[in-house]
């Protein structure tokens, strides 16, 4: 046995670019919304697959969500992931980040031995960037957040991460949890072979189960009191729609760029900010 046990966490999120499933009050009807793989997770997936390609090993994708989330595990499989776990359980509803990280922690333990866990930097529906570090805390791992370059040398992880106003080069042993910034390489196109293979698999549900396993809280031995709304120390008590902006744009028309620019300089007061001297 050689190579690394690489885990990658992925989430299905509503596509905010699509109008489908957006309620009049601006909230998302998750059942109707167009669904997609969290854009940030594409970088994590690329990091996981790249690590496998460079150093050998297997990639396990882990997700938590309602049954349709199996779609993104299929997508991960098409890209070259070896197997997937979907934690799906009604008792997970209304989980905040702490409860989510706990459930994922139990899932990771169930999925077996790992050397590296890659996560996206954050999700586009929650935007918190908290689940990765909270999972690292549960697993007592060192973490590399905002990672934009990743390599393994002599059994040690070498990474470059973004910090305020700069970058940092860090190194650590394994196991480690890494959250991948979107300055990492974009996800490569899936191979025709990979897509074809998964298409074939999708027709044979029994065989597919060997690759993608749907699991629940009982199977992974999670404490139900620590999951879902019950296990969440925070709740969303109210939401308020932010006023629509728009409709007030003054268009500066003119016959030439010269006229239009003159107009805009006159009416916006941008001269205030010119370099002095």
């Amino acid at each position, binding site marked *: 046995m050689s190579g690394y046990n690489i885990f990658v966490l992925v989430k299905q999120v509503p596509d905010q670019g699509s109008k489908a499933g957006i309620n009049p009050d601006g*909230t998302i009807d998750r059942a109707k919304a167009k669904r997609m793989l969290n854009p940030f997770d594409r970088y994590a997936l690329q990091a996981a697959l790249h690590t496998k390609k460079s150093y050998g090993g297997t990639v396990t994708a882990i997700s938590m969500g309602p049954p349709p989330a199996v779609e993104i595990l299929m997508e991960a499989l098409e890209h070259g992931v070896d197997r997937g776990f979907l934690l799906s359980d009604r008792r997970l509803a209304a989980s905040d*980040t*702490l409860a989510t990280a706990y459930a994922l922690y139990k899932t990771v333990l169930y999925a077996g031995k790992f050397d590296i866990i890659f996560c996206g*930097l954050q999700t*586009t529906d929650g935007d*918190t960037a*908290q689940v*990765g*570090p*909270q999972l*690292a*805390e549960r697993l007592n791992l*060192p*973490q590399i*957040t*905002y990672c934009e370059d990743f390599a393994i040398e002599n059994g040690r992880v*070498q990474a470059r991460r*973004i*910090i*305020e*106003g*700069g*970058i*940092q*080069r*860090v*190194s*650590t*042993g394994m196991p480690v949890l890494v959250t991948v910034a*979107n*300055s990492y390489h*974009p996800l490569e196109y899936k191979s025709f072979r990979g897509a074809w293979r998964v298409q074939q698999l999708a027709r044979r549900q029994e065989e597919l189960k060997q690759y993608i396993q749907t699991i629940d809280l009982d199977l992974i031995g999670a404490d139900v009191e620590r999951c879902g*709304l*019950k296990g969440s*120390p*925070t*709740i969303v*008590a*109210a939401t*308020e*729609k*932010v006023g629509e902006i*728009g*409709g007030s*744009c*003054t*268009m*500066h*028309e003119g016959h030439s760029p*010269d006229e*239009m*620019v003159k107009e*805009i*300089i006159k009416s*916006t007061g*941008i*001269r205030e*900010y*010119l*370099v002095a001297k």
Partner: protein
Amino acid sequence: MSEENTPQQTPETVPDVSQFCPKGDVLVVAEHILGELQPVTLELLGAGRILADKMERKLICIVMGHEIGDIPQKMIEYGADKVYVADHEALKNYRTLPYRRVLVDFLESLPEPPHTTLLGSTTTGRDLAPRIAAHFDTGLTADCTELDIGPYEHKSKVDPTKIGLYPNCLYAIRPSFGESLKARILGPWKNPQMATTRPGVMIPNKPDSNKKGEIVKVPVNLKEDDTRLVVEETIREMSKGIKLTEADVIVAGGYGLGTVEGFELVKKLAACFENSAIGASRKVVDLGWIPYQHQIGQTGKTVRPKLYIACGISGAIQHRVGMSKSNIIIAINKDPDAAIFKFAHHGIVGDCYQIIPEMIKQLQENKVKREVEAVVGTH
């Protein structure tokens, strides 16, 4: 939402919530880069002071680092009552595990856990805060834009153990769903209540050099486990330039520029302005035209400059959420139907390669004119 509309519980089911009403103070975790206090910390001191005064509690701070100079004194001037200092060579550069250890030890050493703990939503705050929250099994609200404290009556039937009247509940407000909603996140049944706040949003106090405060040293006891990760090198490449979140003027470029050369124009235009910075949309960052640090939007930075000039940016929701709070937004785009014209304040439909050079030319002429006026004015 439904939480608030559920009918009131019968009194016998109401548990005693006094255990959730700690006497603790408001804690701000300071952030500095090698002795230079970050603006977000001053903002947190402003917001934290209001919360502490409302509850008649103290505003306390912790500063971790090595050879941190006059930071504690400065924090007192900006509103802190008491500053705890953890000074150790191993804390010189921020690293998750050592900072986590010191903060956990410190919180456990306090006679009363803080009522509320605040950090900035920076790369550091977002790295450290979740670990602390997970350690104490407490709630953490990310990236808040408003904070308040007040009574809250929880009536939810779903979890009867939490029903009750909480006299001092942290109201943490954050944008959600692509910033189309403001969500009020509450969690008074776990302490400390924690939040990170978005840089550039809270308002710092005016410094008062006469303000008195206490400075206390705290012990640093790192374990072997805490040094598993080694910082090999730190490069502050942008420290010379102006940071996006602090710039008065941002000139941003998008895919509509057509080629990477378009950014040369963007840079020239930005150079016309004092305290300016260059921004970009996600697409051009993905194309490698400009580094990620310049990306504005949902997956990049959130900015609110006085002036935002969007060049060849279509104005997708993902970009809009990062810049829509700018005071004045000027959009230049060839496409009259571009979404950006729906929320910009001023727009020009035209080719960036004609408009931007013209703008640079006229601004430079304007500058000369203004200088002449200034000189004439003094006579």
